[in-house]
């Protein structure tokens, strides 16, 4: 018995040595930098290029799905085991980074290195990097969505390719004509595919808002926002041009990063899809896809949702000075050109989007629509956000109501009202817990809590 335990122990120690060896370790002599971002395959090239330009560094990616990632990153940073660089995926993400003290204020440091955020970058993406005139992160890319069209499916239906500007009514007609049903009468090819989490986009398109201008209350129950969500819901349940959750569950598709609507579109289950230029990262893998792009229909003037990542530096990182070099890289030509070539959305620095390389990528000559992508960014606006409520909590509340709408369980106006009410209650709760926020709120509204 004793010998059995002794032998087992030795074997386990041996295995531990093996486990230690196969841990991915930085090569000696280089300064390791860890960057937390999403799993987009384009990251590998972006990292390789940086390491090439800066051989003294060994930059590595720590992949994190964007949804739950931020909170964990902050937690780890505060615990001293955080990364050196982390991406914020929205203005409210940046807000969380700043308020928890994890994001390093780099206004002076970047200025010293000749990087002028406000002058160089698309205005739409500024709120993801700047808070109260202090710079915390550099935008890694900018995305403004448009409508992808599958030209082959249009040809098969005998439809001309739509061109902007166009209205939602025109859109609906085209989408309905592109629905294809199978022998049992079920739709096997939809006119339009859209991720449900694009609902903030629709709200913006119709002129609505999620939060008031100063972020002090949730106004998602306003008429424009309600109309927008009603339209989205009707696309599924009235006009039947968009798959319902049940329809989606039955579409088994190939893999590739960014599952869901992208893969359905790539597999030809839909003729049009609302998405970003970064879809190409996955779509380029689908052979024989013949694509076109058209701007999203709008109601009055064009108002599109701009989003993107901004890279912040962990204030508690022992290598934060070195990490600045990565941000400078993100401001430079090599990186921005790479972003454009890879189609990881559109480069954040404006002037690199007006180069001939951007317009016609020699590796992908069929992508003749890059101007459309660039031009829509001009109309991009950043998401609404509020510093008076935790972004994740608010999203959870809003998504819960929107889920009910998505599965047609609740009428839209009621859901919007309930959503607004619950978020405002959450704001009240947050204010109660945090005196510094109360002061800020008072300064903005003259009140201590929402009425």
């Amino acid at each position: 018995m004793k010998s059995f335990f002794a032998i087992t122990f030795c074997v386990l120690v041996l295995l531990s040595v093996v486990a230690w060896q196969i841990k991915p370790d930085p090569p000696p002599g280089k300064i390791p930098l860890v960057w937390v971002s999403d799993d987009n395959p384009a990251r590998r090239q972006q990292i390789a290029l940086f390491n090439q330009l800066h051989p003294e560094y060994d930059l590595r990616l720590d992949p994190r799905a964007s949804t739950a990632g931020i909170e964990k990153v902050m937690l780890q940073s505060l615990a001293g085991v955080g990364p050196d660089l982390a991406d914020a995926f929205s203005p409210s993400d940046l807000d969380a980074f700043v308020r928890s003290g994890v994001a390093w204020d780099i206004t002076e440091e970047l200025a010293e290195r000749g990087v002028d955020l406000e002058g160089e970058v698309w205005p739409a993406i500024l709120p993801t990097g700047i808070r109260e005139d202090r710079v915390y992160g550099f935008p890694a890319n900018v995305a403004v969505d448009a409508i992808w069209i599958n030209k082959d499916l249009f040809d098969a239906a005998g439809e001309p390719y739509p061109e902007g500007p166009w209205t939602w009514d025109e859109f609906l007609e085209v989408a309905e004509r592109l629905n294809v049903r199978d022998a049992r009468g079920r739709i096997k090819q939809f006119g339009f595919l859209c991720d449900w989490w694009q609902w903030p986009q629709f709200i913006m398109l119709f002129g609505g808002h999620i939060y008031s201008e100063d972020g002090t209350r949730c106004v998602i129950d306003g008429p424009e926002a309600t109309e927008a969500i009603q339209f989205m819901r009707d696309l599924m349940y009235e006009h039947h041009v968009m798959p319902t959750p049940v329809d989606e569950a039955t579409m088994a598709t190939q893999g590739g990063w960014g599952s869901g609507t992208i893969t359905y579109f790539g597999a030809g289950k839909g003729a049009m899809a609302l998405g970003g230029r970064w879809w190409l990262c996955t779509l380029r893998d689908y052979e024989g896809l013949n694509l076109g792009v058209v701007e999203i229909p709008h109601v009055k003037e064009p108002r599109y949702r701009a989003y993107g990542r901004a890279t912040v530096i962990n204030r508690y990182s022992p290598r934060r000075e070195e990490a600045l070099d990565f941000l400078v890289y993100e401001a430079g030509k090599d990186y921005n050109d790479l972003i454009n070539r890879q189609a990881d959305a559109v480069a954040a620095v404006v002037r690199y989007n007006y180069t001939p390389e951007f317009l016609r990528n020699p590796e992908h000559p069929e992508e003749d629509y890059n101007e459309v992508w660039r031009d829509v960014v001009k109309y991009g606006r950043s998401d609404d956000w509020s510093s008076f409520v935790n972004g994740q909590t608010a999203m959870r509340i809003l998504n819960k109501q929107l889920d009910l709408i998505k599965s047609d369980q609740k009428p839209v106006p009621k859901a919007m009202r309930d959503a607004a009410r619950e978020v405002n209650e959450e704001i009240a709760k947050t204010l109660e817990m945090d005196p510094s926020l109360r002061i800020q709120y008072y300064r903005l509204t003259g009140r201590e809590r929402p009425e």
Partner: protein
Amino acid sequence: MSAFPRERSGRHLAFSGWWYRRGRFTASHVLLVLMAVTMLVPFMWMVLASFKPLQEVEQLNPIPSVWRFENYPNVFEQVSFARYYFNSIFIAAWVTFLQCLTSAMAAYAFARLQWRGRDTVFRLYLATLMIPGVVLMIPNYTLMVKLHLLDSYLGLIVPASFSAFGTFLLRQFMLTIPSALDEAAAIDGASPWQIFWDVIMPLSRAGLVTLGIFTFLGNYGSFFWPLILIKSEHLRTLPIGMLYFDTVYGRQTNLIMAASVMNIIPLVILFVAAQRHIVRGVQLGAVKG
């Protein structure tokens, strides 16, 4: 309560008398076969689906028209499945080893040695058995955060290696060993340490095997703790890896079924090999409800 269920031969079993009538006999068989089929069908579906090409998963033919054996290697290409396997087994092995060792030693202290406060402490151990895991997860997590053991092998292994339950189970086993044996050894001049290794442990083999199997099983399938502790790809265990695979890489049902099959096979083998131990272990209360 005795430690082992009394073995009974067929003729003395409760209903053997009147089951002999033909009608009853067949009814039992029908029921058993029906249940067996119900248990098997999902597993069969899983195995068959794992060999199908993706388009066929949508269709309703049970048997694949083309057998895509390459689905299995494909899983390894899409995610670091081999790594997940290694991690699960490595961590479960360490946890099992540590748990058996420390629990046996503690059980010996409770079962055989006399010391003041022994029973009170034991009752304290027992009391913690009814605490739901969730209550402990949160503080343990913050402890890992403070110790910088978040996202590490140590963080996965160490907290799981100590269980009041293992101590309880082994103490029960040890109590059934006649104390005359240790007294004899003591008279011969053996120290408690020697008695432990030479007398008690060999006789507790059944208990150790049972505890070992259930600890390994519990840790192999452990979900909550690795879920909150792990973020790095190279540390993922099988359950977390499977979840990641399902969430991120498209709805490739055939590959996911292949991964599930590979996940389950060691368990099937373990069960078939160690069946009797497992059954006996359950019947002695080896599973916490």
